[in-house]
């Protein structure tokens, strides 16, 4: 397992840092005493990377993503997004966020849902229409513009929510277990589509999951986390080629990375604690 990543896209000069976390800590005060959701997290994410966060529940992977998005405030350490504080980054609309649930507004049609961030950010009607058309095609939802969310399947709803996050062209895409509630077949399909989308848009993607195959299949970098306190136990640079058909998951290289992820999870004593 190499530490460098020769297969990553060529970057002119030194790679631009999108997310930089130094000694990041976050402690929730609860009635049962403080909960250390994040403790001493050090991580650098470069432009164009696909980073997966994997670990059992309570390891802080979602909290870390929410901290990047300025939905939670760190209690110690430093976090910079594109060289800005998370709040500044949020206010300059630096990222698109895809939640666990589609969170489409049921009173809006699919195209109106995709238009929601565009309306808030003040795009003109013409530009809104162009962007809706483009992103709907990008997630293969053309033809469903006038449907309401509750008329679509779960997989289509989640694709619509991805379209919504893509619509305003933020360079950073934060995805919090977006396919967690979907069945295996739909999930495989959406995973390969997500890779194509990543290749087409050149975005930086942070992806939270608790599925080892999903993490290995998608990522250029896998961050293994463990709970109590939530911390990073291993950072794995993937050696898989960028072109990844679904059957790459049977290759020895893929299985070797998956084994290392599993070892990392075990090293955190995470499952013994939880089960």
């Amino acid at each position, binding site marked *: 397992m190499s530490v460098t990543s020769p297969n990553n896209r060529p970057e002119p000069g030194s790679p631009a840092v999108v997310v930089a976390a130094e000694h990041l800590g976050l402690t929730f005060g609860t009635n049962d005493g403080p909960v250390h959701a994040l403790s001493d997290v050090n991580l650098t994410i470069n432009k164009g990377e696909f980073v997966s966060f994997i670990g059992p529940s309570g390891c802080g992977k979602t909290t870390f993503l929410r901290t990047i998005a300025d939905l939670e405030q760190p209690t110690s350490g430093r976090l910079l997004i594109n060289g800005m504080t998370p709040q500044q980054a*949020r206010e300059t609309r630096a*990222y698109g966020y895809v*939640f666990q649930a589609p*969170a489409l507004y*049921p*009173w809006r049609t699919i195209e109106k849902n995709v238009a929601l*961030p565009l*309306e*808030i*950010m003040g795009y003109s009607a013409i530009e809104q229409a162009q962007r809706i058309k483009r992103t709907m095609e990008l997630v293969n939802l053309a033809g469903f513009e006038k449907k309401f969310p509750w008329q679509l399947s779960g997989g289509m709803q989640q694709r619509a929510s991805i379209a919504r996050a893509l619509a305003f062209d933020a360079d950073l895409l934060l995805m919090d277990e977006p396919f967690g509630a979907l069945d295996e077949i739909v999930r495989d399909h959406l995973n390969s589509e997500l890779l194509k989308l990543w290749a087409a848009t050149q975005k930086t993607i942070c992806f939270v999951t608790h599925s080892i195959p999903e993490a290995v299949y998608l990522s250029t970098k896998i961050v293994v986390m463990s709970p109590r306190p939530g911390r990073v136990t291993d950072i794995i640079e993937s050696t898989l080629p960028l072109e990844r058909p679904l059957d790459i998951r049977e290759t020895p290289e893929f299985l070797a990375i998956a084994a290392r992820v599993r070892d990392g999870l075990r090293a955190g004593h995470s499952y013994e604690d939880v089960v």
Partner: protein
Amino acid sequence: MSQLQYYLALVAGGLCAAGLALSFATPLETALLLKAFLALGFLSLLRFALPLSLWADGAIAALGAVAVLAGLAALDPAPAFFWMALIATWLFAWLFVERLAAAIRAGRATGFGMVIPLVFGVSILLFWEVVTRGAHVPQVILPPPSQVWTRLIASLPTLWADFQQTFLKAVLAGYIMGCAAGFAVAILVDRSPFLKAGLLPIGNFVSALPIIGIAPIMVMWFGFDWQSKAAVVVAMTFFPMLVNTVSGLNAASSIERDLMRTYAANYWQTLFKLRLPAAAPFIFNALKINSTLALIGAIVAEFFGTPIVGMGFRISTEVGRLNIDLVWAEIAMAAVAGSAFYGVIALVERSVTFWHPSVRGRA
């Protein structure tokens, strides 16, 4: 044929047979129609040998209704077989509705869904009419519906003036002001925890005030005309709107709010694009509750001093003059106006909250 239908048919036919036998005591030519109905009802017992369409039951019930109404004038005092015919009519109507409902459930009589409530309503009116007139119920206790109707038609100008005074002025003005104020205060309360701590208990306090107590005071404050009644309506409608809107504004899920935050949306964008649409089902609940509360409030408030017009005024004075039929006419008008008001709001609700699971299930 279900067990219930079996016994209904048996009892209705048997009753007709007994009534027919009793009716031979009178000369043949009196109440001929009634006797024809009883004979036909008796013959309907043949259904246990031959199939009888459910529409035949409906037709027999309709004939019974006409015969009983016609017999009212001819037979005085009403003999036993007259009352048996009335009960048999009711049983045939019941049997008809029972069979029609079964046919609709089985998909054999689609499109007749409105017939069932219609038959029910007509049956109630028929019973009311026949019992009050046939048994000579004093008009003060309960006037027959025909008398109420005649009175209603005869006093249309009075009723219209009362309707204008109470509904078009007091109710609508008070309703709009009360709902708007409740809504506006809910937005303020939601914005500031300080106001929430102060204003919600006051709203609660206002709603707990007895309407009987505040109505005379409002008359002192705002005069005898509709303004004082509108003030009572405002006091009544304010609180349901306040409470419902406050909970409605919290109806949006945390994930939906987080989404707005990731867009760096400001307060007003979040309010108009997320929280108010999510609150719409709650707001419409308040509007529906208030539509009936407002009418009650305005009518009761008019008991405590009013110019010589208005639905509440008319009810209180005409009761004193024993014009009970006019009181019933006012009640009928209030019921129709209240239902129509509610219906209009429910219709608007369905078109606005079409996305809500409670609405979108229905076609």
